[in-house]
């Protein structure tokens, strides 16, 4: 039986593609082992399509591609968004580069006007919405993070307490995991926990660096 199975094994590929010799068909009729093999291979083929298209790249990837597309000059019309574009387009039917120049001039003017308005006094730091983490905030943040938060405090006071607290929380757990890992280096669960915390920290930092958060209002 095994000799027949072995002989006909090479034909199995063809059989699954729909071509089969009479010997193979005869063998399959009575050989349960080969039947199982065929069924197993078929079940793989049947199951595979369900995983097509499972993964999704992060949203920021499009931005990178878009920048490259513009940099290579593949775009033949550069739109810029905003009600202002429609307004200016209506009043000023110029070709795109001239329109861009006009837009810039207006931005400059708008910027000048806004700066000359009376600046409101800076706000007192807002109360954090969540309860304080069980950590010494100052100790948990690195000096680089302190600098970043100080800058955010200056530019966007509403945001900084939230990021300060959350960053401190994540750092606290990173420390905790790291110390546990030091005592128990092979422990995969602790390593997994540490990785999660780092990923979350990366998320937080990336949110902080979003142009909306880190800019002068």
């Amino acid at each position, binding site marked *: 039986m095994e000799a027949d199975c072995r002989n006909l094994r090479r034909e*199995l590929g063809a059989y699954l593609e729909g071509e089969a010799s009479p010997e193979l068909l005869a063998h399959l009729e009575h050989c*349960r082992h080969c039947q199982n093999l065929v069924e197993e*291979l078929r079940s793989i083929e049947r*199951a595979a399509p369900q*995983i*097509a298209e499972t993964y999704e*790249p992060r949203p920021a*990837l499009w931005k990178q591609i878009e920048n490259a597309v513009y940099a*290579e000059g593949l*775009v033949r019309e550069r739109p810029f968004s905003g009600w202002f574009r429609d307004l200016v387009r209506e009043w000023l039917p110029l070709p795109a580069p001239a329109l861009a120049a006009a837009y810039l001039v207006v931005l400059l003017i708008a910027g000048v006007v806004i700066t000359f308005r009376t600046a409101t006094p800076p706000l007192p730091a807002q109360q954090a919405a969540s309860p304080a983490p069980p950590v010494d905030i100052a100790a948990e943040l690195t000096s680089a993070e302190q600098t970043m938060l100080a800058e955010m405090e200056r530019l966007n006071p509403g945001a900084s307490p939230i990021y300060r607290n959350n960053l401190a929380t994540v750092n606290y757990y990173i420390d905790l995991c790291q110390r546990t890992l030091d005592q128990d280096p092979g422990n995969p669960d602790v390593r997994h926990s540490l990785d999660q915390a780092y990923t979350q920290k990366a998320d937080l930092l990336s949110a902080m660096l979003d142009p909306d958060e880190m800019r002068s209002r």
Partner: protein
Amino acid sequence: MSPSRRAPSAGLAEAEAIARAQRGDAAAFEQLYRLHKRRVYSLCLRMTSNTAEAEDLTQEAFLQLFRKIATFRGESAFSTWLHRLSVNVVLMHFRRKSLPVTSLEEASEPDEEGGPRKDFGGPDNLLAGSVDRVNLERAIERLPRGYRMVFLLHDVEGYEHNEIAEMLGCSVGNSKSQLHKARLKMRGLLQEQRAARYKEEGPANSSSRR
């Protein structure tokens, strides 16, 4: 097995986007990206098992697409054309790293020591109920790259052997034999995974399989 369409208007939307992209419309580029990013990225990720590399390859594939889109004349389905580009990008990536991607030789592999004999059937169908998404993904990750590409293109993405042969620059016969070996290897991996899940059971429990 063409890619499933989410909305009936998606086919029209794509045709329109292609036409506008051929004229250099930025919004159309974005639309094409959104319609196909998952397929391209999934292929790249499964081949590289690394999100950073997969993103780089995805970016390269789409850039090539946008550069060449003016030459697309509809001789094949757009998604096939895009896929061909993506496959090329992946192949080039591995070639540059001097890693084999497709083993195009016909020589049969030596049997592995231990483990189930991968090309013989057994008294029971051991995979009944095991071929689910979770296990498939795990097994694909462990599949040698030489087999992975053909398996992904044929069984997962649904391309025909003549299309795969053209994409990979091999013969149709090659594609068929590689696929067969890939499936045998997948079977072995799935059996191993199944065995590993049961490893910690006591000896008395083998009869209660479904």
